[in-house]
């Protein structure tokens, strides 16, 4: 059998798997009966419906013809990797990660790391430009979030502050 709509095929599969997983997980909690619902009742119900919807979408994707096969297309690994990576780097540097021995470096360092990594996701990457952008964003964030809104952030690396 041929897949007629790639997008729908995988969307259906996603629904089926996630719905099934939630429903299966729900059986681990007390399900109860309609008049006295346990914590598992509603998720079991919803999970089953989602799985059914998934099966239906999957079925449709195999049977109903589409003009162009609704291909998913290539996955943009580069932006995906750099954007998510920059976000993770920001988190690690801001809060520190004791399990791998990274001390908290504070907001400013984290902003520079984020901007430098995230900028790589684009087509054009000019070091000088990115550097200026990070300075501008660092100053703006400092003024807006720390000074104006008074949010509790560690601004500088912990070894400098202490």
């Amino acid at each position: 059998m041929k897949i007629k709509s790639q997008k729908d095929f995988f969307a259906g599969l996603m629904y089926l798997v996630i719905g099934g997983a939630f429903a299966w997980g729900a059986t681990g909690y007390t399900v109860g009966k309609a008049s006295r619902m346990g914590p598992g009742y509603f998720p079991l119900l919803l999970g089953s419906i989602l799985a059914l919807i998934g099966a239906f979408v999957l079925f449709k994707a195999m049977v109903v013809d589409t003009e162009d096969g609704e291909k998913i297309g290539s996955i943009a690994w580069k932006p995906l990797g750099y954007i998510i990576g920059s976000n993770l780097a920001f988190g690690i540097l801001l809060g520190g990660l004791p399990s791998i021995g990274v001390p908290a470096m504070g907001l400013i360092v984290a902003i520079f790391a984020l901007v430098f990594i995230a900028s790589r996701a684009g087509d054009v990457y000019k070091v000088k430009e990115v550097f200026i952008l990070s300075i501008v964003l660092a100053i703006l964030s400092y003024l807006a979030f720390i000074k104006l809104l008074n949010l509790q952030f560690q601004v500088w690396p912990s070894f400098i502050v202490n």
Partner: protein
Amino acid sequence: MDLFNNLAIGFGAAFTLQNLLYCFIGCVLGTLIGVLPGIGPVATIAMLLPATYALPPLAALIMLAGIYYGAQYGGSTTAILVNLPGESSSVVTTIDGYQMARQGRAGPALAAAGMGSFFAGCVGTLILASFAAPLTEVAFKFGPAEYFSLMVLGLIGAVVLASGSLIKAIGMIMLGLLMGLIGTDVNSGVARYSFDIPELTDGIGFITIAMGVFGYGEIISNLSKKDEDREVFTAKVHGLFPTLADFKHMLPAVLRGTTIGSCLGILPGGGALLSAFAAYTIEKKIKLKPGEIAFGKGNIRGVAAPESANNAGSQTSFIPLLTLGIPPNAVMALMVGAMTIHNIQPGPQVMTSNPQLFWGLIASMWLGNAMLIILNLPLIGIWIKLLTIPYRWLFPAIVLFCAIGVYSTNNNTFDIWMVAIFGVVGYTFIKLGCEPAPLLLGFILGPMMEENLRRAMLLSRGDWSVFVTRPLSASLLAVAVLLLIIVLLPSMKSKRENVFKEED
């Protein structure tokens, strides 16, 4: 007059220098971000929500209202100037608005959108103020069964108009509802789907979902497109104000748009998109006067009517939120989130327990609208300049604000890991053609629906027929079914597809 008394309380509470300032800042920020291509009101509010945490509740809500209107107006601005609707409800605006801009009449188009919206906003505020109190009475008659049915109606209403594939959108709702259940079950205290991660027992923060899915997901998908597809060209804008002839054409269109918008906005899930779509369809049906430009070629009525309708609709869509505590669309879902953060449980009790806040919020909506027109008419030229900022500078800044935003909600890096996960999830959704907005709505409604379902079933001793034997609940469900049937009708189906094609 009760109405005027109430409004007086509201304006008294809202009209402080501080609140006006927050409203102004909100409007500026909302417009600034809303005018960026690809970022609609939902993403804008999600991004700026953390900025309001430190404020007192009323000021925070006023600022959010400002952000909301700013973002919405910003979305219309891009729709007109560069043919990029910032949100689904300004899709129709692009049809005639962009044509006007191409003819160098972007000024009148923007002014028509702004003035139409302002007028509609004023009417909407009055309707909201006069119907909020009686509707609250109705709200007290609502039992758990009615609430459940109303939420079903709201969710159905949201999907039938808000996305391409109906069945996939319903799937997204289910997914959202399920994700909303993650965390501690209020009735039994059991931590569900938390995998023994302490942060997950509190549930997933909706800001993490909103920012991950809307913010990161969109950016990644934007970056994967070729430069040429993304680049926005701005035609020269000359002549800010509409001519006298323009005004003559505009006025009746604005009136019709406002009426349609005010009625349709009250329906949960109806909201702005349906209003704009309906208003445009009606304008098109009305005969052209001699000398008027055809629709689709830059008719000012084609801008004024849908813009007024969507603003009136978004104004009256506060009614179900404020009186019943049920968010009719994703933006309102974010507002619920904002209210709960400030310890306000939206619903009928807000009006009695906290009249200053309730009426203050209503007054602030009018303020937001007024602020918008003061701000935008003279500044149209500057908003256009903003569009010339290269995307390669823009997106790192957006990523940064998302990251700072989620971290500041709990001061916990766990949220940063979560937003990364949802960024990947959001990109997956876009790739698979699944609309994320219904997911967010489902996510907010998940716990509420479960709660009311449980209560309703407990009261009926496990008898499911309670949803159809109680008249109010039955009629709500009937409307939901009716909506589904209308959408599945073949003629409507092709129309819907046409509307959404414009968006691509």
